[in-house]
């Protein structure tokens, strides 16, 4: 690949957040978790299946918004290896790994259709997060049903 083509793909941003090393194919779900849709005002760049040193990855660049730690950590549910780079004046000011939160609210829908959190009650879904060898597992605070695979499919 020529240098000029590569530059076009990963153009630096002036201020904002670059989320790197997202599990390949999960970039759009990352946007979903962060509540970024087509009506958001800032510029958002998405790179899917970009070749990286450790295989393909996705990258998301959000201009003009610095992610808070708890926002960033939610991403770990679907992209546990993601890194967060806070950019100011084209420089990386802060670089950190996402941390798996112990508890999440209002991000994932319980897979049990008869769970009270799926009714019209005034509550958000809540899950205890467990980081097991087999992967991340979510246990519903209300009905205790466990989601152990395809978490991205159950994002709210």
């Amino acid at each position, binding site marked *: 690949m020529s240098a000029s083509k590569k530059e076009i793909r990963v153009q630096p941003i002036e201020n904002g957040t670059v989320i790197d090393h997202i599990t390949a194919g999960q970039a759009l779900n990352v946007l979903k978790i962060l509540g970024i849709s087509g009506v958001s005002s800032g510029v958002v760049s998405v790179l899917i299946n970009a070749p990286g040193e450790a295989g393909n990855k996705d990258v998301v660049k959000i201009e003009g918004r610095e992610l808070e730690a708890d926002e960033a950590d939610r991403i770990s549910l679907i992209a546990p290896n993601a890194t967060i780079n806070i950019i100011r004046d084209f420089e990386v000011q802060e670089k950190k790994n996402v941390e798996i939160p112990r508890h999440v609210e209002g991000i994932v829908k319980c897979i049990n259709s008869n769970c009270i959190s799926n009714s019209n009650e005034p509550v958000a879904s809540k899950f205890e997060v467990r980081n097991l060898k087999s992967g991340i597992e979510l246990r519903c*605070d209300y009905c205790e049903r466990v989601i152990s695979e395809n978490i991205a499919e159950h994002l709210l």
Partner: protein
Amino acid sequence: MIDHILDTAEQLEDIARNKEQSDILAGKILAVLFFEPSTRTRMSFETAIMRLGGNVLNLGSVDISSIAKGESLADTIRVVAGYSNAIVLRHPMEGAAKLASEFSSVPILNAGDGAGHHPTQTFLDLYTIRRESHLEGLKIALAGDLKYGRTVHSLCYALSHYGADITLVSPEELRMPQEIINDLKNRGLNVTETDSMESAIKDVDVLYMTRVQKERFPDDAEYQKVANRLKITPELLESARSEMKIMHPLPRTTEIDPGVDATPHACYFQQSFYGVPVRMALLALVMGAME
């Protein structure tokens, strides 16, 4: 904590039998919110509060209450908490009691949340085992519908606090879910599975029967075949140990022959009664009348 509740129930048993009178819950009101039909759970809670001198406030029919107008459970709970000192809730959805506890200013007692939990049944089952047999070193056979029966699932988890040898007796279609069996083994319980009632009852202290529901089977013939294979009769009990006790959460249909009722093994009506002292203990503890 489990043992403390069972100890408290034992202290209150004579009051439950009406041999002694008590008014330790005088002036207290228990709200009974049953969004699903139930006879024995509701009645034993009502008996429990009345035996301790308290009063009952009943939701009445769901069809004519505010719920029929679309009120959320959260709002119902906030309103009823203002009228009462504790709320007993049965609801068809899993997690309802947990949700109620988030909106209530008074204690919530879960009397069944869909296919989720029915903890007061588990307490009374443990109490029955303790009173009629023994909890430590227990050998128990659980028979019938082990797939959908939340009662047996909860009882197994509760028994894991004491250690037990568990034999599961069920037809292939109604086997206990493998993840629960794995959980129980991880908690140190010995679990074996069989489809033979004869072999299962020979060496156990307690046989816990559950009802096999007709609607779980594709046709009546299949149901009858399974129901007959699991049926307890006086003849079958000849091979059981003399002190073996038979429990059942009731209502029963055909799984226990009425001829068994007169044998010293039958314990299910005692079990049903024990719901009263156990629920008295829970009410006295959550309302602060006992410590």
